[in-house]
């Protein structure tokens, strides 16, 4: 058919042959970076939801030998105090079994747990709108049980949040760097293509082709390469993610995060090939237009 094929035979030379594979690697890295950021923010949300509204009162193991009855009495008076304090909704003692269950992910199912001198824990639900003043609460609990502490999880959660934020920043940086490298690669490949096909480009220019017409030849080629590379990269990333999430599922420990993606997150990943194609196309276009501007 007449002139259906491209005028600049870009797919016949080797200039762009490696581009899809480089794009694939980059999209793969970008996808994994995005997924880690998404997983991290999910963990933080889960912990945040699970922990806010709760504080834990920790009564240390007494140094002086106390009878079980004395220990119980001490605990009961703390619980009474807590329940009388404004902002406290409930206070429940966590028994030895519950405490052991909490430690299980760290220490495993050990029969020796019950013999360990574990501190007593009281889970306190607080009113999030009008929370109690933890400092004064601690002071009053300490009058009954010296060395008692109240953990409002904020310090720990704060650290977790800043870790999550750092991972998000690193992920964004990785995506940015990957994008930048992709741009540089496409510029390089397009310039090579222009150099290899300079005769054709110049001829098109001389017979009256507008710059946009010539740029189109290159940008369509680049778009195809970018999309193909992006598709390969995102497919490999999906296989990796599914593989890891299955391994995590098999490990079955509460310590490790889950890695199952929500539909919206899969949708974000599936946009990557289109993003790669767009970056490749726009970069090729501007590269050609800049080069053509030097031809009188």
């Amino acid at each position, binding site marked *: *058919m*007449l*002139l*259906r*094929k491209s*005028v600049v*035979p870009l797919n*016949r030379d080797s200039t762009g042959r490696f581009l899809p594979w480089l794009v694939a690697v980059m999209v793969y890295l970008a996808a994994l970076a995005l997924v880690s950021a998404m997983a991290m923010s999910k963990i933080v949300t889960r912990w945040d939801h699970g922990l806010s509204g709760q504080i834990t009162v920790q009564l240390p193991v007494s140094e002086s030998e106390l009878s079980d009855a004395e220990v119980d009495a001490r605990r009961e008076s703390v619980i009474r105090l807590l329940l009388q304090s404004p902002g406290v909704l409930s206070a429940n003692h966590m028994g030895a079994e519950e405490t052991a269950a909490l430690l299980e992910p760290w220490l495993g199912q050990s029969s020796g747990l019950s013999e360990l001198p574990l501190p007593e824990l009281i889970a306190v639900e607080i009113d999030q709108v009008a929370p109690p003043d933890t400092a004064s609460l601690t002071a009053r609990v300490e009058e009954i049980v010296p060395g008692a502490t109240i953990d409002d999880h904020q310090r720990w959660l704060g650290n977790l949040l800043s870790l999550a934020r750092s991972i998000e920043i690193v992920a964004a940086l990785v995506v940015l760097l990957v994008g930048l490298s992709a741009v540089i690669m496409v510029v390089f490949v397009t310039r090579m293509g222009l150099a290899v096909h300079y*005769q*054709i480009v*110049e*001829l*098109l*220019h*001389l*017979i*009256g*082709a*507008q*710059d946009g*017409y010539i740029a189109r030849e290159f940008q369509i080629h680049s778009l195809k390469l970018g999309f193909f590379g992006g598709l390969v990269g995102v497919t490999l990333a999906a296989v990796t993610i599914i593989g890891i999430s299955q391994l995590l599922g098999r490990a079955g420990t509460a310590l490790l995060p889950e890695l199952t993606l929500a539909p919206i997150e899969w949708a974000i990943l599936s946009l990557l090939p289109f993003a790669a194609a767009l970056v490749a196309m726009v970069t090729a276009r501007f590269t050609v237009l800049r080069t053509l*501007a030097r031809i*009188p």
Partner: protein
Amino acid sequence: MVRFQDVSLRYGAGPEILDRVSLDLAPGSFHFVIGASGAGKSSLLKMMYLAQRPTSGRISLFGRDVSSLSRHDAALLRRRIGVVFQDFRLLDHLSTLDNVALPLKVSGQRSEEIRKDVVELLTWVGLADHLDAKPATLSGGQQQRVAIARAVVSRPSLLLADEPTGNVDNRIAERLLYLFEELNKRGTTIVVATHNEALISRFRYPVIRLVRGEVRLEHAETLIRTSDMPGYEASGSTTSGGASRLRGSPESAG
């Protein structure tokens, strides 16, 4: 049609290729450009098809000052100029048909509309049997006809040919010039650069001779007597140093 006013050209810090050249080619005229190798024939033509900007001076084409053209308008102007390049510059991966159709495609015409015109033109230049042939399979003369067909397919008002007789034997070269004559009779302004003085002496068209960067106007028929004289310098009708003024001669028009 083509007007140069005090046009000078030098590449970088090199010597002056063209020195304050002025010429004015009327619509429908036919001119030869001759001169020794390196005299600036190709440079003169390049400036006419907007591939080269002059170092100084003014060039206007079709009544428009080319230095003030936008890139968009320059492209539109180029579509009115057909160029037969010395090395043909056919695209190896395209068929004869596609090579010739290229200027039409570039100007945005649809494939269906293009085909009929292109086939008709290729029949006219005797290549009807080679529509699908790739340039590499054609002889030198056939390639040249493809190049000419491509140059004229968009019915340009100005046709420039750079050494079209260089790569073919005399018999084909002469036929080629008759082809240009035919196009000239249909109103196309034609400029042919060549070093083959013996050949052009058979045609009664004005000659722009380039000597040391300057232009002199001669008539082709005078070349019969003078071309084989060593050290010949112009005995042409108009000679005035760096600023000769040429006009398309009446007999070549129409």
